[in-house]
């Protein structure tokens, strides 16, 4: 019941945001661009394990700020798994490398810590583009 009242209240508030009778109607808001929202994808998916801000230190995963173009496995203090180091030592997180990683992280570094699988090239591109320019 409380949830129903809450939902009704939200809709009612939205409806009340009308312009006054004497003012011209507000210009129509353009529909949101279709396609992946890189910022949302990074914050909601990557952000469940990785810190994202400038100067952030590692959390469950190393910080992703500045990751594009960075060498893999070098963030101080983070315990990369032996499997990760084996597969990725010396490699650089180029856009192409990140794209392979986000497609199937276990294929790139079997038995490493991150289990990430995304088969949508547009989403992966949106994520990488946002990481490159947060």
């Amino acid at each position: 019941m409380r949830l129903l009242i809450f939902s009704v209240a939200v809709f009612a508030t939205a409806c009340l945001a009308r312009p006054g009778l004497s003012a011209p109607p507000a210009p129509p808001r353009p529909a949101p661009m279709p396609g992946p929202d890189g910022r949302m994808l990074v914050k909601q998916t990557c952000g469940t394990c990785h810190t994202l801000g400038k100067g952030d230190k590692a959390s469950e995963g190393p910080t992703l700020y500045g990751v594009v173009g960075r060498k893999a496995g070098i963030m101080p203090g983070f315990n990369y798994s032996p499997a990760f180091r084996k597969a990725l030592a010396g490699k650089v997180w180029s856009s192409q490398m990140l794209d392979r990683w986000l497609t199937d992280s276990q294929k790139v570094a079997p038995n490493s810590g991150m289990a990430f699988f995304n088969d949508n090239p547009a989403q992966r591109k949106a994520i990488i583009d946002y990481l490159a320019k947060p």
Partner: protein
Amino acid sequence: MTRLGLSRRSMLGASVAGAAGALLTTKAAAADKGADAPFDAETDVVVCGGGAAGLSAALFCRWQGAQVTVLEKAASVGGTSAKAAFWYWVPNNPGMQALGIKDEKTDFLRFIARLTEPDGYDPGDPHFGMSPWHYAMAEAFYDSGAEAVALLDAKGALPYLHIPEAPDYWAELAENKAKKGRVMVPKGINDAHSDGGRVAIRNLMAAARRDGVTVKPSHRVERIIQDASGRVIGVEASTDDGSVRIRARRAVIFASGGFTHDEALRTAFLAAPVMGGCAALTNEGDIIRATSKAGAQLENMKNAWLAPIPLEKAVAKDGSMVSTFAMTGDSMLIVNKYGHRVADEKQPYNELARVFANWDGAKSEHPNLVLMSIWDQRAQDKCASPYFGSLIVPDGIDDRHVIKGATLEELAGKIGARLEALHDHISARLAPDFQSEVKATIARFNAMAAAGKDTDFGRGERAFGLYLNGPAKEPGQKNPTMWPLAPQGPYYAALIVAGTLDTKGGPKTDVDGRILGLDDKPIPGLYGVGNCVAAGSGAAYWAGGGTLGPILTFSYRAAQAVVRDSA
């Protein structure tokens, strides 16, 4: 948080009426569609959510011959499970059987009753004082847990490692007749037993791909679709390119997690003053909105799997936080704003987190709304850990929650300043005599630590506290969990508040995962597993692994029910 996907038909309405109108237009358009509008895809079983609950349910259905599609809201599967240590607690499990460790059913159910309904517990009652539903759920857990985990292991989807030395959180209760042996972890876990979730998800996903389960990331299930009789026959999900309707010929199984990250639902329902948690950020209680129109009955909404969380991370909405499972440090104690200890710091995290809700009727306040863990340089040097949400962290690990002072006076001043800076989020302030009181508390603690006995709260007297504490840090340390704080600084502090692993209330199911209506009858075609539905444990945290053990078990039972019901 997620943009509402607009169906192609409602794009025109959206551009004319603006955002609010778009919301209403889309909902109106969707409500008209019902069973007769075309579907974009179809399968036997739609699973909403790709954490441990969803992936295991998908596999259990697939192994019985069903065609299965997992719809995952985030850009990849894993959910909260991927971040978890992934202990799973299973009574009479294959490991116990192999070692001859007894775990009798009647004894187990009595123990569960003692924890789940302590207020009505009655050892002489046939159901030990539990409600019929709690009893049935506990019985189902006992009956099917071992089979479920054995099958996952046999299929190579979740090979296990038995950890017979891990003590139950309630090892000291007389009703617990098997104090060790119920804990299993994914095989391949690290030595700290902290990364089980990553092992589990990669194994479950590998099996899902091997066995032909379809997994679609970035699909947010927003609506169920019912036919004229009320049977659930599909879902509507929003994606980057608009919404899609997917037909489920046999069942829809929700495994979408709790509502930790929906502030409105938290405030409306939770008993504890929870400010956030380490659940997947996509856990916003979607099942509640999606199934309410079908009349799903809600149960256990006030409860959550609780743990302390750092206040700064909660306020920053740091999605990457891990709740504090291990309260590290021996020269460490926790005080409230009055400078007083309030609990055994080393008790299981769910129990420790319950003190945040303590109420002072004279002052009309929660005196423990925010607590401070205080430790010295010695603990910083010896007890730092990157695991289990330790507040004491090594270099390179996120330390935004750490406050440092050269002296206790300076530390107290900085704590006060930190609370002041966060006053938009929390009203607590240090009491005027905090400094003198905390010094007295530390002096008292130090004397108890030297003697090796916490006469106030019994720290170090329970198996759980000793197990997560690790070995003693000092030769001849009488109580491995206690050491006097140093007379000189620097000192460190962290502000902690109530948090969750995730919530544990939602639609009520029967013992086979069928979601029930208000009349306690199953809504045909609709099932739920995991933290999105009501846990059978009430407020209780039965043991480490007391989340995932039941989840894997009920996932198994739900899959069996799906096949029986749709045969």
